[in-house]
């Protein structure tokens, strides 16, 4: 478990982010309402995103484990998103499992 956190912990220790600042800034700037973002804020958002990845990965593989699988699949992440309130903003990207009925209707189109 310690090895997996090595990079994130090391980055925290040196006050850096594993994500490229320029790229993160470009993503932020896609929002036209945002006038400017300071470099410190940029750094914080980068770090927060890394912790977000960490959280989502952990929560997802818990579901894989419950299902006694060694591979984290789409449905694991979908369940993680559904079960945690803070992840409501991801509901559109990860729609809950597509039912067979829905699949049948799309096929007829």
């Amino acid at each position, binding site marked *: 478990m310690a*090895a*997996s*956190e*090595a*990079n*994130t912990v090391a980055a*925290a*220790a*040196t*006050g*850096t*982010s594993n*994500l*490229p600042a*320029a*790229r*993160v800034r*470009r*993503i*932020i700037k*896609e*929002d036209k309402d*945002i*006038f*400017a*973002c*300071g470099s*410190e*804020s940029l*750094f*914080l*958002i980068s*770090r*927060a*995103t*890394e*912790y*977000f*990845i*960490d959280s*989502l*990965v*952990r929560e*997802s*593989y818990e579901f*894989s*484990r419950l299902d006694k699988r*060694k*591979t*984290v*699949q*789409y449905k*694991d*992440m979908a369940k993680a998103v559904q079960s945690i*309130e*803070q992840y409501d*903003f*991801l509901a559109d*990207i*990860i729609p809950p499992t597509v039912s067979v009925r829905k699949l049948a209707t799309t096929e007829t189109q």
Partner: protein
Amino acid sequence: MSDYEGGPANEDDLSLPRATVYKLIAEMMPEDIVCAKDTRDLLLECCNEFIHLIASESNDVCEKEAKKTIAAEHVLTALQDLGFGKYVTEVQEAYDEHRKQQTKDRGRKSTKLSQLGMSEEELLRSQELLFAEARMRFQSQTSQAPSNDSTPASANSTH
């Protein structure tokens, strides 16, 4: 290649670099579990959404304070408001370290001057001395009457 870091040509495809995120995922996974390819791509999209979410919320906090630039405090407040309070403590540690790094870099730039061991007046005086010496050398070289524009810069082309 391109003058960017090789990012996507189309702004709509803008996302974090895949290799970096894949590597982070791999490190966060326990030894015995792997992440399916489509799941990794999904996570990549989630990151984009997350960044947009935090940035947007931070911007709202920023505007409420009648500021134009998103500051660190705005981001921390936004994280709390969005229910990611547990990130705040962890991010705080990195933030403090980051600020220490910034001041260290700034300090490094100024030590070169202070290492000379001379005050500003002394530096100015030694500079004027150098100018005067150079001027004398120049005037002794030219046997003609010296021109009236005695700008030291014209006689002094050395460091």
